[in-house]
């Protein structure tokens, strides 16, 4: 973990405007933001660790615990909402036995809601990794999971 963090931070100069890019770099490397990494960033820039944590928690891009292997992003942008995105979300929650924002116990999936992934014409849309599933109805939830992880 420490090694990954150092690697992610090696290209920065330690300027205050690098806080968010640094957090992004660490998360790209480790999948989430471990506490030590936040402390490292604070030390590198010379600002309080509480401030870096405050900044990181403000943005929805950042996670503070390890995540599932596949990230299921259910679009609940306006177009997807009016075309039944919530029902798809309900169905996925039921299939996975977790709520939006949570990770399955086997760390296979985590479920999140996102706003407009820019494919409104295909609404309602679910994204798993780079795959986009469009024009979904709730009963396809299982299919989405199966296609995303062969072991499901």
């Amino acid at each position, binding site marked *: 973990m420490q090694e990954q963090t150092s690697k992610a931070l090696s290209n920065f100069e330690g300027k205050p405007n690098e806080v968010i890019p640094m957090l992004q770099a660490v998360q790209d490397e480790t999948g989430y933001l471990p*506490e030590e990494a*936040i*402390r490292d960033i*604070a030390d590198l820039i010379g600002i*309080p*660790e*509480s*401030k*870096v*944590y*405050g900044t990181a*928690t*403000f*943005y*929805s891009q950042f996670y*503070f615990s390890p995540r599932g292997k596949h990230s299921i992003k259910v679009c609940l942008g306006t177009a997807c909402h009016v075309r039944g995105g919530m029902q798809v979300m309900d169905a996925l929650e039921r299939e996975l036995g977790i709520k939006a924002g949570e990770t399955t116990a086997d760390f296979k999936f985590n479920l999140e809601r996102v706003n407009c992934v820019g494919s409104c014409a295909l609404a309602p849309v679910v994204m798993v990794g780079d795959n986009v599933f469009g024009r979904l109805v709730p009963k396809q939830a299982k299919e989405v999971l199966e296609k995303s992880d062969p072991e499901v």
Partner: protein
Amino acid sequence: MYKVTINGLDVEVEQGATVFEAAEKAGIYIPTLCYHPDLPTFGGCRVCMVEADGKIVTACRAPVTDGMVVKTDTEEVRKVRLTNVELILASHHKDCQSCSRNNTCKLQEVSAFVGINQDRMRQIRRSVEPVKPDDSNPFFHRDFTRCILCGICIRTCQEINGVAAIDFAFRGFHTKVSVLGDKPLKDSQCESCGECLVRCPTGALYLAEPAVAEREVESVCTYCGVGCGIKLGVRGDRVIKVEGNRDNQVNRGDLCVKGRFGFGFINHPDRLTKPLIKKDGIFVKTSWDEALDFIVDKMSDIKARHGADSLGGISSARCTNEENYLFQKLFRAMGTNNVDHCARL
């Protein structure tokens, strides 16, 4: 000087003064929650809104302009203010009886001023998540259900103590005052100076052992050379709390953890309250007169027999700077430069 008219009253204030300061000078009350005179302004609570030259502004931040006309009590201002306070109360654990701030609470004061009305409150959806208080710090605890997110503690920690152990974390309705990793305070860089506790307008920060004193006694902290002015809260013959003395030029009310919370020794049974002289191998209580006479005799004797440089003095870090100054004077007057200090040992 700028001339400002507030609710029909004329007042003159320095250029750069805020509407709030002008109103204060005119003796007109404007409710505030996130404003604190020791700190830079924040502008988040929005209960200090007034009408200035026809526009709604926050009095704590808006600077006056010459000839400005301020109204603090228009229908519109009242409505916005009232709704704001109602909204704060909607997610506030409002059981004042069990709160350490009861009767000294700023939120109570402001609620009373805007006129909270139970009929209106019935339409409001209340939502107070039960969150366990953070009681990790031995001196003071944090009750998030009473926190109004005014940020005074945060600014205090940054500006007054310079530690910045706490900051806002998360976003929107989920915003809270937090240390790195949303951990208990004891696992953070907090130095427990208690400056935040002192300024918190509500019961969100409260003493681990709440204490109401009978009377106050002014004194000086005995912990270090700074010599901060303190006020001892006394009950019977016991010291039950310490507050900083804002009138003291040395510290203007600020204290560190030792001065504010380290007063337990005062009431400790082991504490020496009388000087002791060893007689026949045993320490025996005695009077100051006897003890000082004893010291003078011994030191004069040593000086007479071995010369002044056979004497030396070691002073204490717990004396004030002034005391340390007098101490070295004393030894030099006795003819020696052998003076040292425990902090160097």
